[in-house]
């Protein structure tokens, strides 16, 4: 049901001329993707600094609250542009992206990273932070920071692997993979 709905939505996006134009443009698609990668470095670069501090392995002589407070704005600025450019990249190739197992894994990981970020935010936004000057923060904060870095490394991996066609719908693969990738036409052929 969800697979059919997603496929219809992607097919509808694919009917827009601007979607095709963006995908087939000589330079624009490249610039959007470059923007996506560059803003990823801004967003994840700032997040990395915060997470290394929260893990207790870097920036130990700077109060945790200072890094969390001051790096929030550039991090969120990078995040917003990264999301906008990411939506444009999806818009340029909607059907293949929707039916990419790696894109689906990436979205799930993004949601997991978002939930984890909200939990960390709750733990680090209390003022005053009792462990602000401690080189090593409490265990639950360190676990959260470790999870954050793991999730984002996996997001990069999934994003990178979207470029490969290993599990594309036109390939021969197990029934479960057709379902997981949302290959509605191939699944329908199976049922006939």
């Amino acid at each position, binding site marked *: 049901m969800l697979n059919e709905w997603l496929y219809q939505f992607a097919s509808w996006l694919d009917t827009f001329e601007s979607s095709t134009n963006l995908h087939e443009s000589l330079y624009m698609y490249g610039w959007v993707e470059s923007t996506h*990668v560059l803003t*990823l470095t*801004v967003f994840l670069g700032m997040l990395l600094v915060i997470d290394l501090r929260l893990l207790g392995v870097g920036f130990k*002589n700077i109060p945790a609250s200072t890094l969390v407070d001051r790096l929030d704005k*550039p991090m969120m600025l990078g995040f917003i542009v990264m999301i906008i450019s990411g939506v444009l990249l999806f818009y340029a190739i909607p059907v293949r992206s929707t039916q990419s197992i790696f894109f689906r894994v990436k979205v799930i990981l993004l949601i997991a990273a978002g939930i984890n970020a909200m939990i960390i935010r709750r733990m680090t936004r209390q003022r005053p932070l009792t462990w602000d000057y401690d080189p090593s923060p409490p265990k639950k904060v360190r676990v959260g920071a470790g999870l954050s870095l793991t999730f984002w490394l996996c997001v*990069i991996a999934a994003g990178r692997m979207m470029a490969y066609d290993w599990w594309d719908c036109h390939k021969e693969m197990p029934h479960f993979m057709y379902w997981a990738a949302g290959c509605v036409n191939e699944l329908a052929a199976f049922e006939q």
Partner: protein
Amino acid sequence: MDLLFIFEWLDTSMLADFSKSYAGLFAIVQTFHIASMVMLVGMILLGDLRMLNVLLREVPSQKVIDNTGKWIKIALVTIVLSGVYEASAIAMKLYFNTFYWAKMAGLAMGLAYMYLIRNPIYRRAELSGLEPGGAIAAEAVQPWVVKMVAVTSLVIWFTVSASGRWIGFS
């Protein structure tokens, strides 16, 4: 000097046999290449924005620069190791790719700039008392020089990152 022989050697090396055989491992190495690029640019960005007085103004700049140093070195080692592995799989393609050479030139320029110009000027700026808590030294560095150095550094490293992405498009 023509470097073709290096690429021909790399293309027929054991490393190339390995990297061409395992596509999944190649993708994982690519992931670490991107992640280490994020680390490198993130740390440089933090230091440069601090020297531009945009970020972490209440933290002495020396503290920020010193903290980023270790991670920049880790990122550079990972970038080079993963980069050589990636290059071995498509050595001949890269040799004839304009953006690859743009990236390599940018990388060489970025490294030379960071260790020969950026870091010494930042250190001198800290010593000359331009930053809060810095001791007064004889040779002061003008604030506009520090800012120019920071902006140039950002431009170089963003160019390196962007040209890396364009290798795939050309």
